[in-house]
């Protein structure tokens, strides 16, 4: 496999991504804590709302927003409000996704609905979205009207893309859709994951940092490549990761029947009896997928080379991300933030959680 190690051509020292993420997260955690009211009802709402945001997390999304802001001439604090809003929305999505997927572990602990029941968890997810809206509105008050309007449009587009992607993924599962290609998968994750994980934070950060002057059109391509590498790695970790480090249940995606790149590759490769098993596995409900059946599908992925395929596929996309990065950040100052965002490309492929 060709690895992605470009960077020797970059004069800046390659930053320690984990260290830089930690610096950003320190700033973000304080703002996140301040965004959650401390009133009542605490035990039925606000304590739940605080759970996911206070668990160990990478904060890649808001960190991208802060770093892009810096790269385009602003200070990270200029975009702290939108960055916090993005992270709160991400947590809202996680709460609801965990319910839809029947997941049991999130960030190394029980999912919210597993601990508190579906009703309270749904409501806490709603509250996270409401608080995200509040934080965003407060931050828009600080910007000139035209910039505020533009940032609001970016959030509107991001929300629509995300719910479109979620609908497609759930629809594939409900309707037992099998004739899928890797391109279908990329289109799905562009909507469901990449837009709010990478494209949106980068665009908003660049707009705020430049006072609205930046042309952020090239950020779509870079953000998509970066986000695709992130998501494929995430799906791989669900199959091969260490549960204690990864923080989610290993093989959870297989239990859910999630259409990952590995599964789509397997669907296109498996033959004879293997394919029959696979088709049956995808047509039954989650609770009908026994541990033995999941283990059999997982074993097929090794035999048919689906794991290696996905890893290679992601490596190719990450390699293209370097060129897209140069386009998207052309003309910006090549400082720490610039180097950090560039270093995220190989990081996406190497991360263990």
């Amino acid at each position, binding site marked *: 496999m060709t690895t992605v190690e470009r960077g020797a051509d970059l004069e800046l020292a390659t930053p320690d991504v984990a260290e830089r993420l930690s610096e950003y997260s320190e700033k973000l955690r304080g703002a996140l804590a301040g965004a959650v009211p401390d009133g009542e009802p605490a035990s039925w709402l606000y304590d739940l709302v605080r759970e996911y945001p206070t668990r160990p997390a990478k904060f890649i999304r808001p960190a991208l927003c802060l770093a892009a802001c810096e790269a385009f001439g602003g200070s990270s604090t200029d975009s702290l409000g939108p960055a916090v809003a993005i992270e709160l929305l991400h947590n809202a999505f996680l709460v609801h996704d965990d319910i839809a997927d029947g997941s049991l572990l999130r960030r190394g602990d029980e999912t919210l609905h597993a601990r508190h029941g579906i009703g309270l968890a749904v409501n806490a997810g709603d509250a996270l979205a409401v608080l995200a809206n509040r934080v965003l509105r407060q931050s828009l008050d600080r910007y000139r009207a035209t910039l505020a309007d533009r940032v609001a449009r970016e959030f509107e587009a991001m929300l629509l893309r995300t719910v479109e992607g979620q609908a497609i993924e759930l629809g594939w599962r409900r309707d037992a859709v099998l004739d899928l290609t890797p391109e279908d998968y990329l289109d799905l994750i562009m909507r469901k994951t990449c837009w709010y994980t990478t494209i949106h934070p980068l665009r908003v950060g660049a707009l705020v940092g430049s006072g609205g002057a930046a042309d952020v*059109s090239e950020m779509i391509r870079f953000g998509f490549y970066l986000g695709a590498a992130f998501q494929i790695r995430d799906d791989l970790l669900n199959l091969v990761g260490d549960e204690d480090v990864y923080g989610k249940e290993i093989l959870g995606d297989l239990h859910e029947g999630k259409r990952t790149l590995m599964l789509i590759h397997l669907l296109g490769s498996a033959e004879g009896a293997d394919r029959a098993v696979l088709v049956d596995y995808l047509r039954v409900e989650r609770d009908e997928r026994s541990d033995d059946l999941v283990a059999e599908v997982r074993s097929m992925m090794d035999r048919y080379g689906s794991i290696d395929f996905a890893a290679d596929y992601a490596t190719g996309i990450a390699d293209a991300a370097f060129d897209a990065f140069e386009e998207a950040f052309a003309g910006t100052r090549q400082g720490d933030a610039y180097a950090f965002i560039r270093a995220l490309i190989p990081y996406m492929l190497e991360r263990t959680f």
Partner: protein
Amino acid sequence: MANIRALGDIQRRGIEAANIVVGRLIAQIDRGGPLFGAEPPVAPTDGDHPGRPPVGSDLMNQYMTLMSSFFGSLFGLPAAQGNPPNGVDWSSAHGVRADPVTLSPSPPGRCAEGELWLHNRSGSPVADVRLHCGDLRRHDGAAVSATALRFDPAHVEELPDLTSRGIRVSVDIPDDTPPGRYRGTLLAANLPDLWLPIELEVVAEPS
């Protein structure tokens, strides 16, 4: 794609598929598709006024509607119209800050309401916070007395570090108050560095 030839077949397929998917999206946007349309970047202009998009902005309303319908939640807080110098300051890691407060435009005889949020990032708890405000005055000196203002809660016993507290602000507008914008300054006992403008718009009684 300078080094695409150095990549393996699967990696090249990944690049090509990703290029197709993102190219399709970009083309859709270039055609003025349903994303944002092909909008030009927003250039800074001297004519821009600070603050949020104009109240009633179609876009902002659409955004609020989208959020509301997506999450089945309400966004009932009145939006601030200005950018008070002491509004919420995300750039400050220390001190206690407050959001702008704008009261709902109301006619004489009614109660105008708004909400104010205090955020404590001072590094230590703050005790015994009491908000107060002088008379609200119109440009010509007409006033709404400070006694018409109420804060709920009137007294915050403790605001722990890294927490926020919402305070409801209400103004009972006297029946004989002439329409106009009345402005004043909010202060908080035990928070010597905190002050922020407050504005009340008294509108004519609907005929």
